[in-house]
């Protein structure tokens, strides 16, 4: 809940704002990628905003989450700073991982964000471990893992579910079923109609909710959190949603038509939530416009911050290898000085 208690009108507006921030951040990332400003691969969260925001609005600020390769939405929903996120995307030194990780590895332990993850399925065991720690220390927190429908096929996801269930840990597992793992439709990857039925194998509660509806996701996760806090163990929540963009930016998407995307857009999570709030008299069109332009400014400022941030220094590569400084840093720096930094590398 924290600053985003969806049971209050103020919290609902904050949820709407975060969803807009995610959309704007990722729309901008898409443009920057197309312009060659972002290296590597970016996987955008556009269309799935209700899942991250719905789930995080049911958490307290000091709860933990683990994320995926498609992690920008989780970061923003958990309250990470768009400036340092954008700097990380651009590979800059002021990014969350000093520009070494990029889009797929943003982490901020202070914000309870245990990491986006380039390895599909790697997050749930980490959340399980955090939940075990919470349990042993008797803290009033939970750990929540986001993972995709594709990840449900990975062995380590099932190991995590089994551990968390067997030990009755304060963990919440959230499947983001966006209908595809890369180009393969969910029904070609699984023998279940609803992925939440996986929970039956571990004798834990499983529920499938509308992932385009932020309040539906919020309710399911809030209930799961209460259960976890009461010592009744983990819950598996499946949020049914859709990604509007390709799997990664540049994906030619031979596996679907634009009409499929259009169909889902009719239930756009931001638009529908806004309409609901407007109909309840909690926000006007003008206020929504104003919110959107504020969000645009936030993201523009993030881009400026990221552009102005310094590039990492070559010796930063050796930084943070171990708690003790790696001896190579000194050798490497010496060598760089010797050739004026032209040639790089140690020998």
């Amino acid at each position, binding site marked *: 809940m924290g600053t985003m208690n969806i049971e209050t009108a103020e919290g609902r507006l904050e949820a709407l704002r975060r969803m807009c921030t995610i959309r704007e951040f990722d729309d901008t990332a898409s443009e920057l990628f197309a312009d060659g400003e972002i290296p590597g691969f970016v996987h955008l969260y556009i269309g799935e905003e209700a899942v991250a925001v719905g789930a995080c609005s049911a958490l307290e600020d000091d709860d933990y989450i683990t994320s995926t390769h498609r992690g920008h939405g989780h970061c923003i929903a958990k309250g990470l700073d768009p400036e340092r996120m954008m700097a990380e995307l651009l590979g800059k030194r002021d990014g969350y991982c000093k520009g*070494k*990780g990029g889009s797929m590895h943003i982490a901020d332990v202070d914000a309870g964000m245990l990491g986006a993850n380039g*390895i599909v399925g790697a997050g749930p065991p980490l959340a399980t471990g955090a939940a075990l720690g919470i349990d042993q220390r008797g803290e009033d927190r939970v750990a929540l893992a986001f993972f995709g429908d594709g990840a449900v*096929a*990975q062995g380590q996801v099932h190991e995590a579910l089994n551990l968390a269930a067997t030990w009755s840990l304060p963990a919440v597992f959230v499947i983001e079923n966006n209908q595809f793992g890369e180009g*393969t439709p969910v029904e070609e990857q699984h023998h279940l109609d609803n992925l939440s039925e996986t929970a039956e194998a571990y004798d834990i509660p499983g529920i499938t909710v509308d992932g385009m509806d932020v309040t539906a996701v919020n309710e399911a996760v809030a209930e799961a959190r209460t259960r976890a806090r009461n010592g009744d163990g983990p819950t598996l929540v499946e949020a049914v949603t859709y990604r509007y963009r390709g799997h990664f930016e540049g994906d030619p998407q*031979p596996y679907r038509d634009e009409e499929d995307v259009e169909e889902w857009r009719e239930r756009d999570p931001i638009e529908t939530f806004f309409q609901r709030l407007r109909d309840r008299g909690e926000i006007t069109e003008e206020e929504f416009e104003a919110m959107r332009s504020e969000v645009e400014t936030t993201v523009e400022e993030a881009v400026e911050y990221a552009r102005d941030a310094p590039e990492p220094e070559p010796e930063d590569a050796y930084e943070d290898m171990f708690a003790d400084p790696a001896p190579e840093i000194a050798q*490497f720096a010496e060598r760089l000085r010797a050739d004026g930094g032209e040639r*790089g590398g140690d*020998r």
Partner: protein
Amino acid sequence: MSAQNLTLVQAVRDGLHTEMQNDEDVIVLGEDVGKNGGVFRATEGLYDEFGGDRVVDTPLAEAGIVGTSIGMAAYGLRPVPEIQFMGFIYPAFDQIISHAARLRTRSRGRFTCPMVVRAPYGGGIRAPEHHSESKEAFFVHEPGLKVVIPSTPYDTKGLLISAVRDPDPVVFLEPKLIYRAFREEVPDEEYTVPLGEAAVRREGGDVSVFTWGAMTRVTMEAAENLAAEGVDCEVVDLRTLSPLDRDAVVESFRKTGRAAVVHEAPKTGGLAGELTAIVQEEALLYQEAPVERITGFDTPYPLYALEDYYLPSVARIEDGIRNVVEY
């Protein structure tokens, strides 16, 4: 003989296609290899031609993909699983190391594992960590596995066909940086390039430079530049890292008495150490200088701002070779 100008990744496809036509036991499987033709399009069109039983789209489960392939191989098929990037192979590491590599010895030769695990490897594509790493040494360290890394389209097709026909498991690593970097004449008909044989890419008398995969081209460029300075490099592309062509290594070193090794992988525990040991064991009395290791750093593969430092560059390779020659 008809031939086509192919890129390296097209040669992968051509090699797979050739063997799928030759032998109906050859089955390709992996994430998005079928209808979508693979993340790098290495299996493009194979699904349409051979159907979903022979080009199998799998769920996202590397341990399952490789483990299933091992079972298929023991059963008598010739599976060719694809792992999308080498950095995603670790969920399958247990199956490759504990089972594929040992099935033959464990069963005293009654079971074999004719499987080829294909994976693109290596850096230079501006992506961090798992998307760029070169961990060939893990697999070379495991007895019972063959490890192959081509550097040209011609070799790619010939080596892949040899790998598919080989009675034992092969880890076939493809240098994705040069998947589309250049084209070469590749014969339409089938041919093989034998596993376990290095290729001398440039003859020279002053220093032997051992390399493989994407580093071969950079090393060749450094060698040409050095030739203008009067340093005559012999560039040896190892092509198969396990079993290593020890004879080719030793023969070249006996001629030059000096050596450098260029690889992308981190230095510590990398194959440059093994090659250094080989020349010392077999040709110590010919040695005129310490072997120079021109490699990646002992760090995870960094994001792009540091990538140009991480990967051995032409300039760095030249420097390293000069060190050996001037020693």
